[in-house]
């Protein structure tokens, strides 16, 4: 499998606090990687660095062989790295359709695809409803639809299942599995059931460093990981 | 170029700058502590002028009127703070700015209704005529007094904020509101107090100004521009910067009007734009 993302020596500090401490890793194409770790471990910060919401203090990021360290958010989105947010972050005053249209305009996708995605994710009936008026679960789907319309090569999802009721969670898992067959996924998650259902590879972060990285079975049995999770609770 | 004329013009500039300082000190204090950019600040300055005028007409006592004008302006400011501004501390800056603009408009129009549209001034020839002679020109004691008051205020504010316990509280709220609350400092009390001081200072400045300069509608509009230009060049929230920049703008204005009256205001605005483009955060950095 080819390497799609390579991160080298990435660091970011806020004052004296080292949020991301000299992190390096590769992501392989079409692999579903899940990033786990306790709160404050630096997972979201790492994602923010990769997606250029934040500037790294040091380090390099290569995407499909190309150095993207100095690009900004909209540029890397156009290159194919798409992310979703932990807290739903859409265009509140625009309708569901309009939200999707903005995404379609970003990747120069035509309206037919918008219709297709809406029917696949069963968003049709919300088409003309303002996003701020739909339920949380629907908002998450809209966000996912937008991400897909951006034609990602690498899709980064920040806690996609957070706050979703059980039904929706199962639905989401199914959808992500399907997506994962065509698009490389990097998912930050806390829900362990979710994690082990989906993950082909797990990276564990703690205090700004990646402390474990491998197949799900190996990670379960990893003593350091157990200490962090069982020791901390 | 005549050295004596240059010195005179510079002094005039310092004098004007001191008034700008009285205007921007309050603006900066209010911004530093509450993060509100008070569009109505010059309206309160002018309110101080009008109040001074009215009090002086009735009492004919300079000191009494000055104190009364200052305190009354401050109190009116507090009324606005408690009833209106408090409600917008937590919402977007855009709306805060619009609210203070609305207050400015309301104050300006109220002033027109109460005091009329013709300029008001106080006639105190004793204050203006006595002075020090430099060569052929006469520098009035009054202008020296104003410049000195500005300087003294600067020193006092510096001492109070940096060396007193109360100043420490102000600095705590300035830096980090949440932290201050954790330290059991009541931020709302500080906000109201700082508002009072800031607006009272503006009123004080206005009251001093009407002694020598007539005040009428439009004066506030003109002053608020200069106030904004100064605080933004000085970096929003920087007190020392505000003092230095106020004096600088006063001096540059004065020299420009003397040397190049055809383009004096053009120069000021051009300088402002250039500085803001090159150093958008202002010259001094936030304190």
């Amino acid at each position, binding site marked *: 499998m080819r390497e799609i993302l390579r991160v080298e020596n990435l660091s970011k500090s806020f004052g004296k606090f080292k949020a991301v401490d000299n992190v390096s890793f590769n992501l392989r194409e079409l692999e579903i990687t899940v990033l786990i770790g306790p709160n404050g471990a630096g997972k979201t910060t790492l994602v923010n660095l990769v997606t250029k919401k934040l500037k790294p203090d040091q380090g390099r990021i290569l995407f499909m062989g190309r150095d993207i360290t100095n690009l900004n958010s909209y540029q890397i989105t156009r290159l194919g790295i798409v992310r979703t947010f932990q807290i739903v972050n859409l265009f509140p005053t625009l309708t569901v359709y309009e939200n999707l249209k903005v995404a379609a*305009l970003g990747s120069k996708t035509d309206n037919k695809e918008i219709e297709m995605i809406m029917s696949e994710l069963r968003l049709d009936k919300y088409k003309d409803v303002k996003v701020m008026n739909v339920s949380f679960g629907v908002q998450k789907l809209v966000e996912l639809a937008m991400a897909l319309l*951006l034609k990602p090569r690498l899709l980064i999802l920040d806690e996609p299942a957070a706050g979703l009721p059980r039904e929706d969670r199962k639905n989401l898992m199914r959808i992500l599995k399907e997506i994962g067959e065509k698009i490389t996924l990097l998912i930050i998650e806390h829900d362990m059931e979710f994690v082990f259902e989906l993950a082909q590879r797990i990276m564990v972060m703690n205090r700004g460093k990646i402390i474990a990285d491998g197949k799900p079975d190996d990670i379960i049995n990893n003593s350091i990981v157990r200490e962090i999770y069982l020791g901390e609770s | 170029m005549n050295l004596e004329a240059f010195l005179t013009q510079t002094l005039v500039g310092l004098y004007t700058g001191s008034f700008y300082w009285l205007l921007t000190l309050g603006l900066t204090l209010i911004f530093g502590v509450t993060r509100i950019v008070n569009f109505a600040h010059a309206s309160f300055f002018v309110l101080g002028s009008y109040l001074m005028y009215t009090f002086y007409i009735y009492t004919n006592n300079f000191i009494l009127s000055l104190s009364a004008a200052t305190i009354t302006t401050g109190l009116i400011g507090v009324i606005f703070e408690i009833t209106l501004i408090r409600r917008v501390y937590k919402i977007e800056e855009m709306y805060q700015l619009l609210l203070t603009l609305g207050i400015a408009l309301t104050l300006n129009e109220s002033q027109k209704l109460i005091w009329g549209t013709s300029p008001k001034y106080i006639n105190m020839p004793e204050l203006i005529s006595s002075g020090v002679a430099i060569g052929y020109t006469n520098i009035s004691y009054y202008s020296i007094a104003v410049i000195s008051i500005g300087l003294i205020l600067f020193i006092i504010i510096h001492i109070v904020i940096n060396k007193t316990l109360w100043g420490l509280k102000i600095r705590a709220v300035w830096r980090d509101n949440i932290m201050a609350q954790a330290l059991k400092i009541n931020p709302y009390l500080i906000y109201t107090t700082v508002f009072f001081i800031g607006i009272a200072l503006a009123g004080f400045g206005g009251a001093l100004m009407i002694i020598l300069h007539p005040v009428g509608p439009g004066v506030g509009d003109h002053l608020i521009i200069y106030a904004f230009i100064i605080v933004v060049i000085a970096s929003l929230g920087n007190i020392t910067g505000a003092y230095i920049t106020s004096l600088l703008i006063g001096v540059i204005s004065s020299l420009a009007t003397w040397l190049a009256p055809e383009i004096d205001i053009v120069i000021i605005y051009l300088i402002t734009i250039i500085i803001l483009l090159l150093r958008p955060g202002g010259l001094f950095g936030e304190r």
Partner: protein
Amino acid sequence: MNKFLRDINIITILILSILLGLISLTGDRFYLYISSLFMIYSLYALSYNLLYGYAKLLSFGHGMFFATGAYITGLFTLRIFKDPLIGLLISIISTIPFALLIGYITLRHTKVYFAILTLALSMFVYAILIKWRDVTGGSDGLVGIPKKGVIVDISSPQLNYLFILIFFVLSSLTLYLFINSSRGLLIKALVNEERLLFTGHNVLVIRLYAFMISGVVAALSGSLYAVFMSVITPDIAYWTFSAEPLIMTLLGGSDYYLGPLLGAAIYVSLTTALARFAEYWMLFLGIAMIAIIISFRGGVLGALILVTTRLKDKRLKTSK
């Protein structure tokens, strides 16, 4: 096409245009005057709301485009070629690079600095207009801007009125169609700047686009003003004039396309028809502004819509 014909904003504009057209038939100078002013200020306010309501940019210098639009038209028709239509077109075309330049300078700054920078820039324009006597006439301004031109002759009040009416209808419709196009959608998306960046869009470019169109429409309204009044003075560049479209927009309601029109109507009525009470009305506007910010941001139009939807809901409930 059908969808547009049924769109309430378009219907309103068309009905309004017909009413305004009927006014021209009466020939009543007062109504012609007040309606002309309404149309000019409406365009000015619409252009402002493109920035404020849609692009979420608070500018205090919008008057600079109105003023340069007015002065370019005035200067061109007085000194170079005597025709109001050509003058107006030249003015609009010259505003495009001017607005792009100003936008490029100002839009990279954060909200408060952007507001103050636009303020300083418009005062700079004011300073030039007032000091450059030889060209701009200084504080006396430009007088006797011609209405009788080589191509169009709008010397008669009715023709002048029609001239304004045509531009009013065309501009308000075009702007509306624009805001509902794909480009317009991207401008509406500026409500969430971060999300827009992460959707692969260059936010600065989108803002620049909105700024440019806004500036051009403001310049158009300024040009119409110059020809209509025949006399223009530098105070249209003073910052207080920049605050007027802001007040009109807030008053009418910035959330709706036609809000600024309602605000302009209220404003013009208060300041001209009831000029005797002008001071009181300005005070009232100040208080209204405060009230709107503190409690109800939707403005008058917003309030009307809220009331009508509540009534509609009540009716639905009772009919069931």
